[in-house]
């Protein structure tokens, strides 16, 4: 089934807050580790923690052919921005970068990169883990797993 394009029109556009402490993007093409590193790096940082999601080749033993990601773009950006702002405000964190893919992804491709930079590494690890845990609970992005003989919206049913 084709994804409707009506409310996905701003995909790929870059969004940035006035301040440069956070960078939140939804992209229709490959995510880039070095770009994320450059957005997170700063002279006060001593430790930078990355979470990089990759598409696994199986789910509960069933072979995965590909994943289709779609986003309610406007709200996804705003929910990811909330995560970043919360970290910047509450913890000793000096940069948060969250880039999420949409579209069709094959095994090994990267749906998400989260980078947290901090003066000290413990805070960076904790914040990065908080960011991906929260993203998976609150950010309106959906993935459909495509198997050889069927497809399913992940987590939709009990």
């Amino acid at each position, binding site marked *: 089934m084709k994804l409707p394009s009506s409310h996905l029109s701003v995909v790929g556009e870059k969004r940035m807050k006035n301040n440069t402490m956070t960078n939140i993007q939804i992209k229709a093409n490959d995510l880039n580790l070095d770009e994320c590193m450059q957005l997170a790096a700063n002279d006060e940082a001593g430790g930078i923690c990355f979470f990089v999601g990759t598409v696994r080749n199986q789910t509960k033993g069933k072979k995965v052919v590909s994943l289709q990601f779609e986003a309610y773009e406007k709200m996804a950006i705003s929910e990811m921005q909330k995560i970043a702002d919360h970290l910047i405000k509450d913890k000793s964190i000096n940069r948060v970068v969250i880039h999420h893919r949409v579209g069709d992804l094959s095994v090994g491709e990267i749906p998400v990169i989260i980078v947290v930079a901090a003066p000290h590494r413990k805070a960076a690890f904790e914040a990065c883990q908080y960011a991906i845990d929260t993203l*998976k*609970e609150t950010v309106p*992005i959906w993935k459909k797993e495509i198997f050889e003989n069927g497809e399913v919206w992940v987590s939709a049913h009990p």
Partner: protein
Amino acid sequence: MKCNILTFGIARDIVKTSQLELNLEGEQTIRNLKEKLVNQFPEFEKLRHYSIAVNAEYRLDDFILNEGDEIAIIPPVSGG
């Protein structure tokens, strides 16, 4: 009040359109909207859960809808 409701993921599969039109009369809450949705599309009851966003913010059942609001059905998210 005529509502345009955005749908995503499995919600779009259930209603079979990415922009659902519903007519709501009088003051309407998210609770009323959900009742109407389930009446028209019983499949929504089989979902693990679903939320309603108004103007790109999650809102609770008592929230009152206004003309012109951007309403969206948010089935269980699965990003990352």
